[in-house]
């Protein structure tokens, strides 16, 4: 196991991780530049552009710390640079953990077992790295065709995309929220309280025209939902 972690934390692996992280940052900056350039051309003021970006920053803080907490369990198995590389790109902690288990099984051992040598770890690395490219390859190949289909549909009926977008979002989040709510009492309370807070905050912000409140709405709703959900675990 020592041999494994030593190799997994060696300099070349740090360099591979740095390359991936650099590409992620590079991509975000490129899209930021392109969006900022396009915004005024479609009638978005520079104030709105800033507000949209700022809202993204505020709203992502909660989720990012949620992700950070699960990273800890991965670091002990995969080592720091590899965790950085896997979580920095597509793949969530549970997926990567299962993938690591599947890879170890394919070599005939288990994670953390005595037989988990460098070759077993290499099998895990192959499984996770190649398996994770599935999404990247599909998105790279087919996003353009999906876009062309969208253009065709919108040409026929310009209003239809509004209905499809809203319904798709509701469908996805209704399922995800249901799945969480059945996990237990405090999960259900957290979801319901957060949902109701969001409705109240946005209604209030829109009625009174308080723009900063709609930027903070998701962040505040998360805190209220988590706090009240957590209180229910104390009794």
């Amino acid at each position, binding site marked *: 196991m020592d041999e494994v972690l030593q*190799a997994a934390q060696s300099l070349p692996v740090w360099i591979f991780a740095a390359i991936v992280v650099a*590409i*992620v940052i590079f991509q975000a900056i490129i899209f930021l530049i*392109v969006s900022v350039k396009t*915004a005024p051309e*479609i*009638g978005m003021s520079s104030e709105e*552009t800033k507000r*949209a970006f*700022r*809202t*993204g920053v505020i*709203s992502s803080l909660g*989720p*990012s*710390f*949620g992700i*950070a*907490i699960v990273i800890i369990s991965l*670091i002990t198995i995969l080592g*720091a640079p590899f965790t950085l590389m896997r*979580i*920095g790109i597509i793949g969530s902690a549970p997926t990567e953990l299962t993938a690591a288990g599947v890879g170890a099984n*394919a070599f005939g051992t288990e994670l953390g077992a005595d037989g988990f040598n*460098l*070759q077993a770890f*290499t*099998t895990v690395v*192959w499984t996770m*790295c*190649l*398996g*994770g490219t*599935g999404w*990247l390859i*599909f*998105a*790279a190949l087919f*996003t353009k065709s999906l876009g062309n289909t969208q253009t065709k549909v919108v040409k026929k009926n310009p209003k239809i995309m509004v209905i*499809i*977008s809203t319904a*798709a979002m*509701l*469908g*996805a*989040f*209704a*399922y*995800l929220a*249901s799945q*969480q709510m059945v996990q237990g009492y405090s999960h259900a309370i*957290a*979801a*319901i*309280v957060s949902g109701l807070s*969001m409705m109240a905050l946005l209604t209030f912000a829109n009625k009174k025209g308080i723009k900063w409140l709609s930027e903070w*709405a*998701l962040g505040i709703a998360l805190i209220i*939902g*988590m706090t009240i959900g957590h209180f229910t675990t104390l009794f």
Partner: protein
Amino acid sequence: MSVRKEVESTGVDEEQSSSMETFHDKSHFWGRLTLWMVVVASLLPPLYFSFILDAHPGWGAIIGGLIGYASFIGIMWFLEPITFYPTLGRSGTYLAFLTGNIANMCLPCSASAQESVGAEPGSRKAEIAGTLGITAASLVNILVIIAVVFSGSYIIMILPEPVEQALNLILPAIYGGVLGQFALKKPLYGLIAITLGMAILFAPIYSLIKIVLCVVSTVAVCLYLEKLKESKARHE
């Protein structure tokens, strides 16, 4: 006067369409380039472990691992990009599928950014605002991850115990919050979605495709309702 106004507004619309076309072209170019770059970069670690560190486990084990991986989640390689495309759009898909954490971070941030500028979902403004929201999330997320990895989990350890426990509830809070935001706009759609979501959750179906099923059926029911409304309005 009214004719002229109409001509003017279509002129603006055309201008905006061509701006969006340029935006889409650029999204495809940079999106594809960065995605392929990461695909290539993903090959480096396994090749390094196999052939430089000489720890090659044999192709049999590797193929076995991949088959195991594909059978546990491979179907999502295709289904996820299709399911999330209608809400992410072109640029959002490239961003979200590179940075990951789509449902628990990218989509909520995209939706809040759209809400903060009052953009209607599916509109041009929504596409740009959503993209800005996701780029912000992608940057914040990578910085937080770097900080946690380099501090050797110190950042997590200094969190007070109750905060750490409350963070266990972050997922239901995120999903509930986003659901609330959209249900506020379309309460009827929201009711349909949550009914379908609960029904599908408890239905004896292969669990990975349940979310796709919920998205597709919600979209189908909502489109059908709109059609009914339209034909009713026409009859009156």
